[in-house]
Structures are given as C-alpha cells and as structure tokens.
C-alpha cells in the first residue's frame, strides 16, 4: 500500500474520518468501499478532483434530504458517490448494480450461516 495514495485522498477529502495512523472505519463494508475507490483511482478511472466533486455532490444531496452531516453516514454517501462515478465513467450501469445487489441478497439467504457467501 502506498501511503501517498492516502495522503492525496486526505488532501482532497478533508472530511475523511481518520486518526493519526490513517483512515478509520466503523464497518468492514466501509473499508471495502474505501479500498475500491483507491484501486479505481490508481488505475486512472477518475481523478481526485472528480472524486471530490462526486462525493460533495452526494453529501450535499443527502443534506437537502435531511441528513445532518455529522459524519455518521459519511461512507454511505461515499458509496453512493462511488456507484455514480463508476456508472458515469461507463464501468457499470445502475440496472446491473441493482440486479447484482438482489443476487447477493438471494445468495446470502441460501447460504448456511457461517459459510462464505458466493454468488
């Protein structure tokens, strides 16, 4: 892992929840969303300024819908921004995302508790 990647992200995204050692996450999915964003940026899918715009847009939109912007839902907005920028860049489509999400939920329900969930 290149620390400078995170430093760039932190520079562009001052609100990123972090402590002295780097970003902090409250759930595994938050770390996954974060890692996907770094990986996509690294391969040039979008620039940090594009990402910053997408994220601010998602946060502002949630604010208009009544989200208090306490940081509580930071990664929820982050994921919304990531889904959108991925669609905008033609990497995925919204309908594929919806369909795939349903498939995961079905897969989870048929997977016995304690076993890895596969599609």
């Amino acid at each position, binding site marked *: 892992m290149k620390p400078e990647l995170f430093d760039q992200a932190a520079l562009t995204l001052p609100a990123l929840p972090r402590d002295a050692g780097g970003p902090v*996450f409250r759930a595994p999915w938050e770390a996954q969303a974060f890692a996907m964003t770094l990986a996509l940026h690294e391969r040039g899918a979008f620039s940090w300024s594009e990402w910053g715009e997408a994220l601010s847009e998602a946060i502002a939109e949630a604010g208009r819908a009544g989200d208090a912007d306490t940081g509580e839902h930071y990664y929820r907005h982050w994921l919304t921004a990531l889904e959108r920028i991925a669609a905008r860049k033609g990497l995925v489509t919204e309908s594929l995302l919806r369909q795939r999400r349903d498939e995961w939920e079905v897969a989870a329900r048929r997977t016995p508790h304690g076993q890895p969930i596969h599609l």
Partner: protein
Amino acid sequence: MSHDSPHEGDLHDHDQARGHDRSQGGSELSEMDARVRALESLLVEKGYVDPAALDILIETYETKVGPHNGARVVAKAWVDADFRARLLHDATEAIASLGYTGRQGEHMVALENTARVHNMVVCTLCSCYPWSVLGLPPIWYKSAPYRSRAVIDPHGVLRDFDVMLADGVELRVWDSTAEIRYLVLPMRPAGTEGWSEEELASLVTRDSMIGTGLPKSADTRHVA
C-alpha cells in the same frame, strides 16, 4: 433481514454433522454490505479492480476500525470485579452499559479465558461478526480453509498464530450462531498491577478477543 424464518427445502445443512448449531438457516447481508459486494463483484468481473489488490488495501487498514470498543470492555473487566461478573453473566447488558450497542440488538456472550481454558471463535463470515465491538474482521479469517481447519485442527491454527497453550489447557472452539456473537475475555497480562484502564486497553488486540492471539505483554506499555 431476519434470521427468524427457517428456510424451507434448504439443502445446505451439511455442517449440522459437525455439531454446530445451524438451526437458523441462511446468512444475511446489510443493505450497505450488499451494495458494496454488488459493485465490487461487477468491477472485478470486468477487470477494473484486482481482488488481490483490494485485499492488500483492506489488510492495511483492518486494524483501523476504530475505536476498539472491545478493548475497553476487556480492560474494564480486568480492573472492576463487579463489571467482570456482569459481563460474564450478561455480556449484552454489560457491553451496552458502556454505550456500545450493535445494530440489531444481537446477543453477546463473553468467554472467559483462564489458566485452564482457552477460547477461540471461528465465525466472522457475515454480518453476524460483532464489528461494533471487535473492529474489522481480519482477511484471513474469511477464508474457508482457515474456517474448516479451526474446527478440525484448532491447536494447529493457534500454533500458526504463535499461540502456544500450556500443557493441560483445554481449547474450546465457538462458532457464532445467527443470534449469538462471542467476545473472548483474555487473561490479564502479568506485571500490569496498578495500570489504568486506558493503559490496559492498549494491550488488548483484536486477535486476543477472538482467541487467535494473546494480549500484548506488559513491556509494550504505552506511556500515556
């Protein structure tokens, strides 16, 4: 999002044979978990991200789910006998009394390590992993080989993590059910008499709370 309804015609109950409680049927994913998996699986399929690279990124931060609430629970139990008794009697209540609650009111059980018994928890695979207390699950923990080895050869798994149990210590392996999540209460390290809760908490690692590690020793004390 409920584990309550049994799955009719569910043919995936092979693990019953190992004596684990599988009566609750399937797994569940939170809405956010399902969304992340959807995006990730599509990006991986199309070759836009490499799953191995993602794992490396996540591994870098896996100990960074903060704050480590579980460490504070353990440290308090080490210094406060009443709290310890409450934790062992009703961990859900004791943990909630410190302000740490899970999302679905899951039932927590604390497993006490003693000079005679070492506990190890194996299931961290779905949303039942109590990350609000334990932090992000380690990547290695999700792998099927690890999981089956933990059941078949738990001593071998512990050795891989450099945990050597003294002769005669009984190793108990616990597999979370849909409704019960476990927190291992490790033994307080020697030489920590008079330490503050905060100093003690700095010795409590995630792995020591799932039983694949021991707390750090007293000489790694953080000077606060």
